[in-house]
Structure formats: structure tokens, C-alpha cells
């Protein structure tokens, strides 16, 4: 297999490798007569990324057999790509045959130097090809990467997982100014040092913040890793495309892909997919089992500032109402508790079935209740 590329394609390849390097340790390269695909899987097997370059991305793509494949360390590929794209005239990638022990990269520099790298191949990489059709997802949103970055900037930079809560947008804005989408920091209660963790909730109006948004039916939430999301966002931004996020419900994987404008789509010479696993338990409903509750409808209240911050203390000590579920349910209950109308009636039994209603920013008034919650209660939001 041999392919050569030059000009902007070199930048495109750099961007792709930079994204893959932030996901997994190894790159699986697969060449077919009409395209070349780069894949990577993270060590936890919870993130899978595939970037495909079509034939016309390359100056030349040539195979001696029907397909060619090899696996290499991404660190080695990043070393090859240390040469700045601006000083590269032409780049060629050669794989003599599928059993080759080395993958060859040649870089013709503008100043006359010729660099040839031979990277050792590891052909024992087992990588699952995760192929999911986009049209099986009931819901999706489209965001400009820069805008989404800005939203994420409200969260602690060390945040590892984030929850996206999607509700059906209100059609009549006058009725109430529903912000249909919520982003919420996810703090794993199993982890040790959560005391200083910053909890953040951000409600956004899809009409203002997103390019597109489709969700109908009950509220769903998906919790996934932020690191790979940011890597993919950077990739989309560099490629001058919007980012589309397809989702279903908690526990089902989400899929991200670049979304091109109508004009660009026809000329696009690459495509990309990031599949992220999501946490099994839902943040909205206090886990799975044992409950006769009706699923709560998340209709976040209004008039409130968009971002809420709080640091509930003693979080781990709060009782969960008969859920007997796994490690995370304490947390779900906490949020539900915060939305209880009367802050005194903190009995867990009362939570379920109530609307997740008003919740405003933490009040640091010291006269509030001594068990650590600094929240002011407001009258319940009544529908209708």
C-alpha cells in the first residue's frame, strides 16, 4: 500500500492523528482501494474513534491487494509528525505488505531535506470495529465546536465525566422559558478526593446555543467522558465543521461526527466518528430497580441564573430511598433532594414522583440549615 499527500491534506492528517492520540495508545491503519481509515480505541474500551480519508484526499492511493492493515503506536506517529506541516512539501506512507514489520513514512521537506521513518508495526492489535448507524439514534444535537467549548469552560477543567440531560423543548416560549438542555458535572462518588470538587449545572436553550436539536418524549440523560469529547471537538473545529452528537439514553453509547454545511458536504474528503460509552445509571431517575415511581420529568425552573454551583457536604452520608442499587445512587438522590420544595422535608421518601423543580444558586447565608445544604427553597413551580 502506498499513499501520498501534500498541501492541506498534511494538516488534515496532523489533526486526525492529534485527535486519535488523545483517545488511545495505538493506531490501526486500514487501507482499501477507495479510502484509508485510522482507528483508535482507548484502554478502558469506552471510547472508539475512526477517521476515514477518501481517495481524493490523497494525491495518490495505491494498493497491491484488496486491503492493507497495520497497527502502530500513536506516540511513534506523533514523533513522525513533529515536522511542521508548513515545512512539508509531500508525505508518503508505505506498507510493503500486510505482514510487514515496519510502516514507512517519508517526508519531503520544502528546504530539501528528506526524512524517512520506519515505525515498528504491531500486528497483534485487536481492535473492535465499532460500527453504529447514525439513524438508529432517536435524538441528536449539532453545535459549533467553539460554542460548545465555551459552555464546557464553565466546568472545572479537571472534570472527567459530564451528563447531558435532554428534554423536549417547549414550543411556546411565552408559557415558560424552558431551557430544554442541561449539562451537569458528574462526580464519581466512588473516587476518594471529592471534597473539593466543583459541581456545576448549566441549562442551555438549544435555540440559542446549538445549531440544531432534536429530542422528543421523556427526558433522557447520558453521562460520558469529557476528555475524548474535547479531543473530538478540537478536531471538528480544526476541520471547520460543526459537531453532531447522537444519543439515545443512559447506558447506550453516544456517537459524535462532524457535520458539514450543505456546500462542504459534497466536497468533504474525510469523515470521522467517535463512539463513547455512557454510564449505565441515569442521573435523572434514582437508579433502575425496585421502583414504582413514574419517571420524573425534568423541567428545570426559570428565572434562575443559568449556572448553578454548590458543594453539598456529607453527600455520601445521605440515605438513598430503598434503592439498594450500586455505588452511584447516593448522588442521584442528592440532586433530587436539592429540588425538594421545602428544604426541611428532606426525607428521601418524598422525592420521587415530584417534579424536579426550582433550584437556584447556592445561598451562602450561614443561617441556613446546619447539615450543609445552603439552598433557598422557592415555591414550587406549578404546571398549567
Amino acid at each position, binding site marked *: 500500500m502506498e499513499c501520498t499527500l501534500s498541501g492541506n491534506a498534511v494538516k488534515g492528517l496532523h489533526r486526525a492523528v492529534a485527535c486519535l492520540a488523545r483517545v488511545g495508545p495505538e493506531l490501526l491503519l486500514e487501507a482499501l482501494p477507495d479510502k484509508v481509515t485510522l482507528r483508535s480505541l482507548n484502554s478502558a474500551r469506552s471510547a472508539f474513534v475512526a477517521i476515514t480519508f477518501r481517495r481524493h484526499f490523497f494525491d495518490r492511493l495505491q494498493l497491491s491487494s484488496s486491503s492493507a492493515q497495520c497497527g502502530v503506536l500513536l506516540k511513534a506517529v506523533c*514523533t513522525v509528525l513533529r515536522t511542521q506541516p508548513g515545512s512539508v512539501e509531500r508525505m508518503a506512507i508505505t506498507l510493503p505488505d500486510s505482514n510487514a514489520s515496519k510502516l514507512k513514512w517519508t517526508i519531503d521537506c520544502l*528546504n*530539501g*531535506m*528528506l526524512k*524517512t521513518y520506519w515505525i*515498528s508495526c504491531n500486528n497483534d492489535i485487536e481492535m473492535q470495529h465499532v460500527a453504529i448507524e447514525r439513524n438508529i439514534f432517536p435524538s441528536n444535537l449539532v453545535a459549533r465546536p467553539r460554542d460548545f467549548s465555551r459552555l464546557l469552560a464553565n466546568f472545572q477543567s479537571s472534570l472527567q465525566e459530564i451528563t447531558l440531560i435532554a428534554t423536549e423543548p417547549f414550543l411556546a416560549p411565552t408559557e415558560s422559558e424552558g431551557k430544554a438542555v442541561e449539562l451537569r458535572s458528574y462526580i464519581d462518588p466512588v473516587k476518594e478526593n471529592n471534597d473539593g470538587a466543583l459541581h456545576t449545572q448549566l441549562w442551555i436553550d438549544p435555540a440559542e446555543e446549538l445549531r440544531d436539536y432534536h429530542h422528543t418524549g421523556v427526558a433522557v440523560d447520558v453521562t460520558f467522558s469529557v476528555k475524548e469529547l474535547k479531543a473530538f471537538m478540537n478536531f471538528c473545529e480544526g476541520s471547520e465543521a460543526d459537531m453532531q452528537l447522537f444519543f439515545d439514553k443512559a447506558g447506550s453509547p453516544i456517537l459524535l461526527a462532524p457535520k458539514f454545511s450543505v456546500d462542504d458536504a459534497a466536497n468533504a474528503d474525510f469523515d470521522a466518528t467517535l463512539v463513547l460509552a455512557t454510564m449505565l445509571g441515569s442521573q435523572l431517575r434514582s437508579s433502575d430497580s425496585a421502583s414504582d415511581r413514574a419517571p420524573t420529568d425534568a423541567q428545570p425552573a426559570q428565572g434562575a441564573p443559568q449556572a448553578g454551583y454548590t458543594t453539598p457536604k456529607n453527600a455520601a452520608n445521605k440515605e438513598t430511598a430503598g434503592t439498594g442499587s450500586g455505588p452511584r445512587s447516593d448522588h442521584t438522590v442528592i440532586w433530587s433532594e436539592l429540588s425538594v420544595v421545602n428544604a426541611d422535608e428532606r426525607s428521601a421518601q418524598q422525592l420521587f414522583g415530584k417534579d424536579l423543580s426550582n433550584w437556584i444558586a447556592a445561598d451562602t447565608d450561614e443561617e441556613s440549615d446546619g447539615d450543609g445544604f445552603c439552598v433557598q427553597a422557592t415555591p414550587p413551580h406549578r404546571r398549567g
Partner: protein
Amino acid sequence: MELRCVLDNVQGLVDSLSAVRWKKQQDAICEVSEHGLVIIVEEWGCLQARVYYRKELFVSYEYSAESRPRFGVSLGLLVDTLSTFSSTGTTGLELSYPGSDMQLLLKLTDADNTCIYAEIRTKVTDTVPKEYSVDGDGGRRAVFAVKSAALKEAIDDLEWPGSSISITISPDPAGVILRGEGHHGDLQIDFPYDAHNELFAAFQCQSEVSYSYKYKFLRATTANVPNSVTKDNRGSKLTIGAGGLLKVQHLISLRQAQQHNMDPNPTQQGRVSYVEFYLMPDEEA
């Protein structure tokens, strides 16, 4: 005083001396003569670096010694002292030797006439630095000169493969090949000699020569050359002589303190200091 000399801009001296700092702790040997100063740093048997500062580069150079003084001084200390106040780029230096206790005496004067006085203890040295030479072997040597930035880039890239780098200079096809092999993979960097490209400033080779050098020493020859120098794109000249002795030579332009005296061709005026490295080939390769 055996030596009293004045430099209008100490930055050039700082740049040249920085280029030969490849370890934290290095002792330099300073040789003073009627021709100028030579500072020598050595890793015995492997790598030697010399910085030549001819007397023409000084505003004034008063030498009166019966025999050429030679003394040892800590290189790091000397560079740090000289660069303490030279960030403005217009610091002048008056250097005198010896002080009452054989010290090196420095007086740095800033543009606004702030003066710093420094004394650096010197050491008596018994070791006579080896005199290396790549010349005079009757033809069996190869020489080429490339842009310093390109050479530095190539040597930086060669960090990845391995500990030993081979340098091959051949007449046909004309060019230079640097190659390193390691367990992650191999890297080869070709500098093809082509009269049309601007990569080479000089190339001379009658028969192929090929030797290997330890990467860490090869790296020392370019890693610490200040960026201002590599950007300048003055050539670096490499010569492989008898037995594989490699000489790497950089030219470091000396900026003058007075801006109106812009000299487009410093070499002619002698406003260049030379930094030379001598590397022995890697026997184990």
C-alpha cells in the same frame, strides 16, 4: 595585568559560550594569547568544544604576558555572570586577568552606566587540551556546510531512534545521510546535494566516508546554540577527517552595540566568533 580587553557588546560572547554548555557542571580552560582568547571545554576522549574570540573582535585588547596564560574556570558560572545583565543587548564588558589572587575580573557596564563588578575564581590546570585537526590527511576528508537550522532540526529528530547515529557523506549520489536505528523504529534523514536547492552552502567529497557517533555528543553540538544564531541561518560546517574525527563549526555573528553601524557582511569585518566541536567516532557502533 596580563590581559585587559574591552567588548562593546557582551551578548555575542554569551551566545558563543552558551553553545558549548551541554552539561550543568563543566570546567572550561581559557587560553590567552596575543591573538585572542580561546575557551575549551572537554569530555575527555569523546567531545571537545572550542570558542575562538579573536582580538579584532574587541574594542581594545591589551596583552602583556611573558608566557601564554592558561587557567580553568567554571563555564556555567562565567556564562551566568556575563548574562546577568546582558538582556538589554547593550552591555559592555571589560575583562581583566589576573586579579590579586589569580581571579578573572569582570566589569559589565549597561547602557545607562550601571556597573557590575564580578570576580571569578580560577583554577590551575594541568591538563593540556588535545589539539584536534581534521586537516592534512591528503584528500580523505569530506566537508559540507548546511544551514544551521536544518542541521539542528535533523539532529533533534534523530533523538527518537537511537543512541548511535551514522553520518555518511558520499559523492554519488552527492549528499549526506544521517541515520539512526532503534527498537521503536528507524529514521534516516537525507540531505541531497543539488546545485539548485539552498540547503548546502558547500559540499566537497571525493570518496564516500561513513562513521557513527554517539547521539548525546552529536546533540551537544547543536542543542545549545542560541535560537538567535540558528535563525540567522549562518551555515554550520561539518568535516569528517582521518579516522572519523568529526568537526562541527558554527559561526556566531556579533551584534554591535551601536545600531548605526549595520554591517551586512560581518565576516569581512571580522565580527564573527567561531565555535568548533570535535567528536570522536563511536567505537562500539
